[in-house]
């Protein structure tokens, strides 16, 4: 799922400085799971913002609402009535949710309340790790289900590099070397022969972000 971290409160306060009434909109999906922008975080941040503004003698009115999924137009539009009553919106959804609101409410200033960070997995309570960079052409079948694009600092397709030491990465000592993990996994599966296949360079300019905005079109689903 998408992982995010809440922006520093002073940065949010600077964004909303000219406004006296805002909507703080949360999302019930990914950012709820990573405790960055769900209903609880909306409540906590709303109180913090009101208190901070009251302290400087500039009271702030904050409406609070959380949509099940802010990146879906049906749910984003549920904010319509509330948005008519406010001067600005701080969205605690990921960058997708923020832009969904922007598309549907073109005259309303909308600010992000979180930094969308990566596509990741929950390792344990309070610890999330990157697992996917949405590169557009999955190679997990060739690498034992471990992604070198998201987990190798150098994104090597045919690793490891010379910096792998005792199973750890030279760039980030606390991180496992992705290619060590790939070797161990293929070894456990009895598929070490897969390492002899050279994985060709990815076509970043065709499959990935380098060619500009990506789109998925399913004609059968269009109404």
């Amino acid at each position, binding site marked *: 799922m998408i992982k995010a971290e809440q922006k520093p409160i*002073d940065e949010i306060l600077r964004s909303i400085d000219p406004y006296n009434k805002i909507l703080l909109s949360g999302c019930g999906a990914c950012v709820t799971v990573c405790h960055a922008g769900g209903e*609880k975080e909306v409540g906590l941040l709303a*109180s*913090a913002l009101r*208190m*901070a503004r009251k*302290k400087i003698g500039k009271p702030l009115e904050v409406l609070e609402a959380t949509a099940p999924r802010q990146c879906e137009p049906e749910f984003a539009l549920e904010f319509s009535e509330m948005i008519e009553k406010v001067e600005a919106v701080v969205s605690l959804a990921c960058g997708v949710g923020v832009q969904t609101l922007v598309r549907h409410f073109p005259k309303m200033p909308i600010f992000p309340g979180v930094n969308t960070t990566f596509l990741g997995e929950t390792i344990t309570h309070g610890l999330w790790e990157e697992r996917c960079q949405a590169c557009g052409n999955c190679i997990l079948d060739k690498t034992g289900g471990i992604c070198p694009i998201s987990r190798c600092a150098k994104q090597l397709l045919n690793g490891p590099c010379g910096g792998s030491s005792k199973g750890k990465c030279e760039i980030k000592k606390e991180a496992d070397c992705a290619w060590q993990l790939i070797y161990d996994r293929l070894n456990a599966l009895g598929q070490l022969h897969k390492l002899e296949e050279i994985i060709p360079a990815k076509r970043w300019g065709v499959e990935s972000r380098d060619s500009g905005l990506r789109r998925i079109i399913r004609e059968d689903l269009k109404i």
Partner: protein
Amino acid sequence: MVDFDPKIIAFCCDQSGYPSLDMANSLRLNFPKNVEIVRVPCGGRIEAHHLLRALETGADGVILFICYEENCQFLRGNLRVKGRILYLHKILEKIGIEKERIEVCYLATNNGVKLIEALNRKAEELKRLGPNPCK
């Protein structure tokens, strides 16, 4: 010292804080003047936004009476709330509120005297800090 009776919200865990409160009542111990009790089934039920909302809506200070570590009926409720308090203290620092306004006090079932001592100490501390500027 500022002359005011600070309003304290005391969250009491059903397994430790609340029985201790009962005991303090039976012993007819003196409470500070302005204390409001919130009974909760476990310390782990208390979320960070409950505490901040208490400060926002009129409290000068908040105190949590919860079970000692390794003594939680629900195993880790007291540890969960401890983490939330640490997170909340960071938020309070960022918005310029003294983090001492929110405090945890660990109790056993029969700590009525300790509970009253903690409440009286908290009231004195809050008098020194002065009224909560954000309520």
